């Protein structure tokens, strides 16, 4: 028992010192920390959103919608290809994830196959001998498209959130088509959510003045046209039209914008924008050819406004006026600057905590932990005297090591995580209890003092290991399958299991060995 290898003593001291040093920054406020010299570690435990306040949003990219939109574009190409080859067809439509159609003359099936084979290498065209055809994207192309849509969405979301001035947002991919957004400090996420929920696809399309909306609705919609609703009109100042018949063909898309700003024109909030050179030229050409006609400014399939083109707009910039409020104008400018989402996004899960509740949670978590630890500390002294004090010292280092581990690993502390700390404190002394009870038994069994101490530690070790491993199993599974705050609990529980194994065995043992060596006691005070 007296033997405790020097390297082990050194290891215990170094680890404990490191634990104290790396947990120290948590005692200071960030302001105080910045005044400390550089050699002192500065990393604090990162607080979860449930403690510091903020918003957690789990978004889903509607990849299927992006796919459908792309198929709609393919329909036009298909129609063109079949027309070019002069092949008759019926029922050209998007059904699920495929385009379906029927070749009219069965003797033209081979020609149809040939004509359609060329339109896109990402497409697989199958036409049966009965003339029923389907066009699908290859699995590879679908997958590539999905990944691209998700990655692009993350980028756009990041830009939008950065524009709102949120500090330290976390935006990461989750699974195949989900995006996890964490916004610390955002108290009211409604505005951010409203911004994220908009696709913000801007197009300029010509209005077809030759058809009235009523006619179009009665089924006299010319091919290549569509009916679009007018955007919501919060101030009720619109010209009164609720819908427009517009050409499907897009004059210029919002993807060619390089800048957009909210400004004022005649005391009305408006959005000014600038095209890149390609967009500017296209816009110039289109307006030159259509002077005197109205064109629609369309955002997410809704017409914001439909001004008449008075002259060719060749400067590469313009102004969108509609019935904007100051807020909606600056939101639109922000969305246009950040770019359009490649696919619609829905919020699957939202958890927002106000800063007050977060502070309350920290407070109650801290009180509970302190009370819990204090009770355990007193309990151990009552039942084990001096050895209880040894256990309590080990418990102190355990707490330091846990905090240090959380700080260094950059793990996030949540409210359930604090519960995990409190719980670990209660469980950590179990190892001491096992050892001490064993020592008592050995003493009762008539062993000498030293050999009782020795036997207590060695015999209890197997049991301690078994019980720790089983708890660790539960912790790892929780981390793997849990989400959000639960992960925080799993982290503290698992770290606590590991640190308590170290502190309850090595630290306590070192304390007892030192006590035996220095004070040469005759009996064990148990």
């Amino acid at each position, binding site marked *: 028992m007296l033997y405790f290898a020097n390297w082990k003593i050194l290891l215990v001291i170094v680890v404990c010192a490191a634990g104290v040093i790396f947990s120290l920054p948590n005692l200071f406020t960030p302001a105080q920390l910045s005044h400390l010299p550089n050699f002192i570690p500065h990393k604090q435990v990162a607080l979860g959103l449930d403690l510091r306040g903020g918003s957690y949003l789990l978004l889903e990219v509607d990849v299927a919608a992006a796919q459908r939109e792309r198929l709609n574009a393919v329909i036009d190409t298909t129609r063109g290809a079949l027309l070019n080859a002069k092949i008759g067809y019926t029922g050209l439509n998007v059904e699920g994830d495929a385009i379906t159609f029927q070749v009219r003359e069965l003797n033209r099936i081979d020609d149809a196959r040939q004509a359609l084979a060329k339109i896109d290498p990402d497409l697989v065209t199958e036409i049966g001998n009965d003339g029923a055809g389907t066009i699908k994207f290859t699995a590879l192309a679908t997958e590539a498209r999905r990944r691209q849509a998700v990655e692009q969405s993350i980028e756009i979301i990041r830009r939008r959130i950065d524009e709102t001035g949120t500090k330290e947002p976390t935006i990461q991919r989750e699974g195949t088509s989900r995006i996890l957004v964490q916004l610390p400090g955002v108290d009211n996420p409604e505005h951010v959510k409203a911004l994220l929920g908009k696709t913000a696809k801007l197009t300029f399309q010509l209005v077809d003045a030759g058809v009235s909306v009523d006619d179009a609705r009665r089924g006299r919609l010319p091919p290549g046209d569509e009916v679009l609703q007018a955007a919501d009109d919060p101030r009720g100042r619109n010209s009164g039209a609720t819908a427009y018949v517009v050409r499907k063909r897009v004059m210029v898309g919002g993807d060619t914008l390089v800048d957009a700003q909210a400004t004022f024109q005649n005391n009305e909030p408006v959005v000014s924008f600038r095209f890149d050179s390609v967009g500017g030229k296209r816009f110039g050409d289109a307006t030159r050819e259509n002077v005197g006609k109205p064109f629609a400014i369309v955002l997410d399939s809704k017409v914001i406004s439909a001004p008449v083109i008075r002259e060719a707009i060749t400067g590469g910039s313009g102004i969108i006026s509609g019935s904007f409020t100051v807020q909606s104008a600056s939101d639109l400018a922000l969305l246009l600057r950040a770019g359009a989402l490649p696919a619609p996004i*829905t919020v699957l899960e939202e958890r927002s905590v106000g800063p007050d509740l977060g502070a309350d949670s920290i407070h*109650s*978590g801290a009180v509970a932990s302190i009370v819990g630890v204090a009770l355990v500390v007193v309990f151990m002294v009552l039942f084990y005297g001096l050895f209880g004090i040894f256990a309590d010292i080990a418990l102190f280092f355990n707490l330091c090591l846990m905090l240090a581990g959380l700080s260094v690993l950059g793990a996030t502390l949540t409210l359930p995580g604090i519960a995990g700390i409190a719980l670990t404190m209660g*469980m950590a*002394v179990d190892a001491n*209890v096992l050892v001490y*009870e064993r020592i008592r038994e050995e003493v009762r069994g008539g062993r000498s003092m030293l050999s009782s101490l020795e036997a207590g530690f060695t015999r209890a070790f197997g049991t301690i290991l078994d019980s720790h491993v089983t708890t660790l199993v539960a912790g790892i599974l929780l981390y793997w*399958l849990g989400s959000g705050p639960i992960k925080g609990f799993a982290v503290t529980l698992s770290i606590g299991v590991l640190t308590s194994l170290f502190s309850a065995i090595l630290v306590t043992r070192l304390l007892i060995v030192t006590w035996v060596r220095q004070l040469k006691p005759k009996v064990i005070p148990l």
Partner: protein
Amino acid sequence: MRPLIVIRRTPKIDFMRWHVAGLVFSVVLTVLTIGIFVTKGLNYGIDFIGGTLIEARVSPGPADLGAMRSKIDALRLGEPSLQTFGSPNDVLIRLPQQPGGDAAQQKAIQAVRDALGSGVDYRRVEVVGPSVGSELIRAGVLATVLALGAIMIYVWFRFEWQFGLGATIATLHDVVTTVGLFAIFQLEFNLTTLAAILTIAGYSINDTVVIYDRVRESMRKYRTMPFRDLINLALNETLSRTILTVSTVALAVLALLFFGGEVLRGFSIAMLWGIVIGTYSSLFIAAPLLYYVQPNRRAIARGADAADAGAERASR
């Protein structure tokens, strides 16, 4: 410095005398749990069934629940539930899943905000969609099953299969009856409850393993002692440890229950129950089960000899 309180002698309690009563009690409890689980089901939180939860603080308090309820009822958002949460100023509002996708949930929250007007601070808002909820249920069940499986395999690996079986049955019993507690009292069952249940599984097995360890050791030491006496001996020898460990963990959990705030209440209740039932099951289920599926004493004795030989080699 000597301890103030000492459990001097190893007690001589005849645990095995009570084990039949214990087994009957546990079977009844388990059947009751399953019965209530099937008929009444669990009071799932929004984590699992989706919906909206709003924690609002009314100032100046106390909150007039009746008036708030009628304002929210007027919005026709399904069947909302309101209850005070901790203090009379804090109200927890639950809305069921609104038909019409995500936008509908957001609109519902806005409608509630508008209806309640000023003087209300929204401390917490949680919205969980139905797809996420069912995924969380699946992940939760999977985690529990895997944890039990992994623990059983570990115990099997470290002991004989009879120990693994006993430990798994005892742990399963604790998990099932903890779920039962939530079913009987219709306490909200959410993600934190699930975390508590997995922790209980880990803790309960811990207790069982300590006792099994002692049973195995005694099997090596007293090779001719009747198995019934042997189990009793192991239980009595480890009893003071069992009591002391339960006490320290219970102290920590009681601190959480009384000072940890409303959010942790469900977790603390589950943990407290789990500690009690876990200790009970180690004493009255796990250990007696060994009596019915007795481990092979000769194999364990052989293992002991081999271990001794190994230890001897190592010490030389």
